[in-house]
């Protein structure tokens, strides 16, 4: 089991500090445990620094750079001693990788630390695929679901995550993705945007939901809880049958929790 607050690397295993993310912590703990399983199965020594909270985007994006810098300074030391920081989110990983150094550019000591952390920060699927180049322990787990995939904007454009989750789903679960029309378009979440401009956000998420349904998929997967809560929330409001899950849950084969926001009656997914 993963360590809390320990940073020792054992038996030359790569040490990974898991940045759980505040959304996973609060709304979808299963994703955190699926991430631990995937990383441990891939041979990592996983540690979860206890003092971690949020990456600071809620302040950074509205332009409060001072408080975002303070949160960055809170987070950076917690992860500096690991070989890697891994987060089950393109958005949070992108914040730490690209925006922490920008925020701290005028404080040389902190900037160096931010740069150091930036270099070893990865989103979960890209870490498994690109860095560890994992080979699945057992292939051929097939569910009766058909899957589509939502690329989160931060994952796609800040971290170049596109093929990695698809390739892992293929090799781990023998899943082929039914691609969405306009798959590189935002789902309308955008942090506080979705609440500040709900009608525009609604038009965007409605289109995303329609595009997902048009693929014939029964489950939409994605790598970012913000997008997934948005899409699942809209699916629930529309009484759509589309199920929404984080890709880590499927990759780890941890499907005990009902799909996100899904009606309780239709959550059981028979695994062949």
């Amino acid at each position: 089991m993963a360590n809390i607050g320990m940073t020792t690397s054992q038996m030359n295993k790569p040490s990974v500090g898991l940045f759980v993310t505040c959304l996973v912590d609060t709304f979808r703990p299963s994703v955190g445990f699926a991430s631990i399983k995937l990383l441990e199965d891939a041979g990592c020594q996983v540690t979860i620094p206890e003092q971690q909270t949020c990456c600071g985007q809620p302040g950074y994006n509205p332009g409060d750079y001072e408080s975002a810098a303070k949160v960055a300074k809170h987070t950076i030391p917690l992860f500096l001693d690991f070989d890697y920081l891994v987060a089950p989110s393109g958005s949070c990983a992108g914040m730490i990788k690209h925006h922490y150094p920008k925020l701290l550019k005028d404080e040389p000591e902190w900037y160096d630390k931010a740069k150091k952390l930036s270099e070893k920060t990865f989103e979960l699927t890209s870490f498994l695929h690109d860095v560890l180049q994992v080979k699945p322990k057992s292939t051929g787990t097939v569910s009766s679901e058909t899957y589509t995939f939502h690329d989160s904007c931060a994952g796609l454009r800040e971290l170049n995550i596109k093929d990695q989750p698809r390739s892992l789903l293929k090799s781990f679960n023998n899943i082929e993705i039914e691609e969405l029309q306009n798959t590189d378009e935002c789902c309308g979440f955008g942090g506080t945007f979705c609440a500040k401009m709900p009608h525009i956000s609604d038009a965007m998420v409605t289109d995303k939901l329609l595009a997902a349904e048009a693929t014939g998929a029964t489950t939409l997967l994605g790598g970012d809880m913000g997008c997934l809560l948005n899409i699942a929330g809209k699916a629930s409001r529309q009484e759509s049958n589309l199920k929404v899950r984080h890709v880590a849950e499927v990759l780890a084969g941890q499907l005990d929790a009902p799909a996100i926001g899904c009606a309780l009656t239709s959550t059981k997914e028979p695994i062949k």
Partner: protein
Amino acid sequence: MNKVNFVERADIGLGDAPLQKNLSIFRNFSPLARAKTLARMDNVEQLRAWTKDRKNFSLDNLADLLEQFESEVTKIGGQVHWAEATGDLNQIVIDICQQQQAKKIVKGKSMVSEEAQLTHALIDAGFDTLETDLGEYIIQLAEEPPSHIIGPAIHKTFEQVVELFERHHPLGERDLPDAKAVMFEARQLLREKFLEADIGITGANYLIAESGTVGLVTNEGNGDLCSSLPKTHIVVTSIDKIVPDFDTAMAVQRLLVPSATAQDITCYTSFYTGPKRTDDADGPENFHVVLLDNKRSDILQSKYKDILRCIRCSACLNHCPIYTRTGGHAYGDVYPGPMGSVWTPLLNGLENNHDLPNACTTCNRCAEVCPMEIPLPDMLRDLRRDEQQAGLQPKRWTLGMKISMWLFRRPTLFRWTTKLTARFLKHRAMNTNAVKHLPVNNGWMEVRDFPAPEGDTFFERLKKQRK
């Protein structure tokens, strides 16, 4: 100045069924078409990097290059005029028209003239002024502002255009079955106007300092008719269009056209270098270039300098998930979409436009496609920072944000907050898997449910498992 309420205007756009039909076609077509055209070009990324450097060089040497441009234009018999504000630009153009004792003016498309509301100013001053770009002509008939910087009338459906033509053209009963027929009718009417005009006004895509040449790309050829048939040609444009040399101009053009209309090259590429020379078969007798500053010199000295690299290609509009749903009129001024959300607050004041920098999900699609690599989402974030500092963000949001950011540095307290949030929402969802209502009114719940959390938090479960 109008106080823009972006959200209210966006609601009008979202509720406009014909507009939504147009936008949905546009949204599905435009990005793919651009990508296809760029894919068959060689070394796009090198071209992009080189052109960006050259544009930066142009901005760093703006004053010198503008002086060089003026001196070259003067040498070949043209005249350069400097307009500090939009009102100055309009007055300069009106003065030239009055000196020429002009009555009729034909005009090509120019976003700077839209910025200055030049056409209105000329009509108010008594000149018969006609827009000759088909899109501009349509919105002139409709008495509407442009909704896109390249396709000013993309908000209009075919049926709406036919209705406008039938209402405004005194041609009696006739059949306008398709776009070709509509275009032909416009062409017939406009041709006469070009021949009658005393003055032709065009915009510019770039100004070449080394030769005093004005470059213009069009697809309709109306620019050439405006510039060469009337006795006087007036170019209205802004100082940020200056480039040092022909090579830079061509690099700008090679990126501009695919980014704008997914073409390899536009139907017409025109270079205007001074008035008609003695041996020339045609061309204007008088050649004027009016250069607008309108705060651009201030922007050059600010952290928003990068926006001056903008070549008005519209790629950011075409790829913006918000612009392609609200349409351009929501932005309340001539420059819509991501570039407009930067330009408009800079030109007209953040206090009048504080919604615009928030009309962004930071999805970064605009920055990815911008041929000049303008970091638009970063600039919009910087503008939101300016709003924070000027107290222009809603107090409720700022307070909530400040409290959250304070909590993020207090892990123990934060753990309690997440625990309570998870419990509360799980309880509100009751036996279902989503919260349908919350006691407080908020934008999230207005349009979607909140998926129920699992109930315990990750850190609670982790602690329990470790026992």
